[in-house]
């Protein structure tokens, strides 16, 4: 082993910080966001929504990708985040009209988007920590089902408990972001966090537990503690996503974060490649692009003089089929679960 190799701290084959792995995805996301949102208001809207979803997928990645534990519970934290920011920012008058049974102290509160986002993240992370203490004792499918149960509980509670929200209704008039820049900044911050925590010592140990929890324990990794930590971070990010979603669409309701949302975001993660931050980015973009293309086709697209129009209902059919096809074609996701690299085009076979 040559000395300078040792000095430069670069043992080949070992995970370490690489600028391109962090900057590559950020450049892609920022550039794409500005280019696409510049096309029209519709695309600005689409970009903002996609960035909120991207944050969710990153939140899923940081936990699922590193721990290998399938979790549906993050949607519950997105719900918490969405509701929290909604309750903190919706005008008092609207609360009186729509949220008539709301807990009195909540009725009076009204604050700006940014402080509200911070509080939403903290609450989301707190709930994730609390539930994680118990749920992270489980692994495998038991963990998957337990987190799913968490989602069902959250949905059932938010959907019915009028003291803390609008019940089965939507909470309207959530103030919207004014510029796409806000979403971009938040997404970039989350990307940095997710990447750094992923390559941190704890992130690497958590990945070892993903591969073989029993062997990882022999290396001194406490599976439970690592999972709780990452579940908490992931819950905070999911809450941020829920909040961004609310401020993007101007309304929030429990069903926004139910099964459809859960599976869309999980599908994005799996399609991109669950084990890397770049995978989360690619998956989110890929699924959005497919959906948008099909939407255009449904409205009629002219290709080489030929007008092609998809009948209604076919869009959903084709999206589902495309997702399944991608999984069959690349079961490890489009990126193969690897981080961004300039040398490998991301479509190269594993």
């Amino acid at each position, binding site marked *: 082993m040559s000395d300078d190799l040792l000095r430069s701290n670069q043992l080949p084959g070992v995970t370490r910080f690489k600028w391109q792995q962090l900057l590559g995805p950020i450049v892609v996301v920022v550039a794409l966001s500005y280019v696409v949102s510049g096309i029209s208001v519709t695309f600005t809207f689409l970009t903002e929504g996609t960035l909120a979803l991207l944050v969710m997928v990153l939140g899923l990645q940081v936990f*699922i990708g590193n721990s290998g534990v*399938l979790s549906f519970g993050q949607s519950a934290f997105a719900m918490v985040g969405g509701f929290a920011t909604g309750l903190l920012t919706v005008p008092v008058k609207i609360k009186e009209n729509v949220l008539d049974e709301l807990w009195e102290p909540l009725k009076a509160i009204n604050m700006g988007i940014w402080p509200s986002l911070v509080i939403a993240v903290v609450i989301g992370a707190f709930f994730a920590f609390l539930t994680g203490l*118990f*749920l992270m*004792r*489980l*692994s495998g*499918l*038991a963990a*998957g*089902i*337990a987190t*799913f*149960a*968490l989602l*069902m*509980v959250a*949905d*059932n*509670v938010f959907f*019915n408990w009028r003291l803390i929200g609008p019940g089965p209704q939507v909470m309207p008039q959530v103030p919207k972001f004014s510029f796409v820049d806000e979403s971009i900044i938040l997404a970039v911050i989350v990307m940095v966090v997710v990447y750094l925590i992923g390559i941190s010592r704890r992130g690497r140990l958590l990945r070892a537990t993903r591969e073989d929890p*029993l062997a990882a324990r022999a290396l001194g990794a406490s599976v439970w503690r690592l999972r709780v930590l990452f579940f908490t971070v992931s819950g905070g990010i999911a809450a941020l996503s829920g909040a961004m979603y609310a401020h993007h669409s101007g309304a929030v309701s429990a069903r926004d974060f139910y099964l459809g949302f859960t*599976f869309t975001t*999980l*599908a994005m993660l*799996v*399609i991109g490649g*669950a084990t890397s931050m770049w995978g989360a980015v690619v998956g989110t973009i890929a699924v959005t692009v497919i959906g948008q293309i099909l939407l255009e086709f449904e409205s009629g697209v002219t290709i080489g003089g030929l007008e092609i129009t998809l*009948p209604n*209902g*076919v869009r*959903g*059919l084709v*999206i*589902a*089929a495309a*997702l*399944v096809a991608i*999984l*069959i074609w690349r*079961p490890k996701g489009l990126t193969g679960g690897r981080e961004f690299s300039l040398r490998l085009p991301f479509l190269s076979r594993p």
Partner: protein
Amino acid sequence: MIQTILDALSYGGIYGLAALGIGLVFGVMRLVNFAHGELIAIGAYLLIVTIDLGLPLSILIAVTGTAILALLMEFGVFKRLRLAGPAVLLIASFGVSVFLQRFYEIIFGALPLSGQIAPWMAGVIEFGDTTITRGSVVTIILALVLLSAMWFFIEKTTLGLQIRAASSDFQTARLLGVRSNRVIGAAFVFSGVLAAAVAFVLVTQRGSVDPLFGVNITILALVGTVIGGLGSLQGAALGGFAVGATISLLNSFLGNYRVYTYTWLFILVIIVLLVRPGGLISNKAVKERV
């Protein structure tokens, strides 16, 4: 009180039956098949569409059709994902599920299709103060019979053994001469048959079918399968039954807090998992040695 228990029994019966089909594929293949609900739905559609041909023929068509669809799922999708991880399989099965829901909507429309299958099942049997519908009795009997049959098939026959081997180590099973793809296909066919049985019971009860017909029962039966006991058919049936019965019992006891039935149900699910991560029945506990 007796009535409450009878209700719980009959409601649990349906979920037990549904969980059996899911548990079969899950226990053998470690595949959480969300699209099982769409197998149930196609069974129900076929029953309603063909009921004019007479019940026996209609049932035959439904069972065959559902089994064929199950086989198509396996050969079209899951077979190609043999080496993929559980998350990928789950998402793929969800994709299949959505695909079929959309497909049904295009073919049959979003509105429910209604029809009367075996109206006699709606009748009630009375014992003094308490009543139970004939449908419930049929369901419970059907569940027990199919459970025994499936158990015998999986545990006692050579084909059953081969199915278990193929699902636990696909490549090694092939090295021993097990035609892995075929035997797994067989398991899917049986899960299709079980789905048709659930479709029959549900459609006599609900009287109509729509594209999302199977979603809810599948979700709950899946949960039941897992809390019942990983990889054990009896566990799956018991777990499904427990979920159904618990819903029914909570519904009686929660009074005007009934809307929170699912909250309590799923809190109980979490507690069961924390106390017994391997499920209620872990007699054949598949342990891992270091």
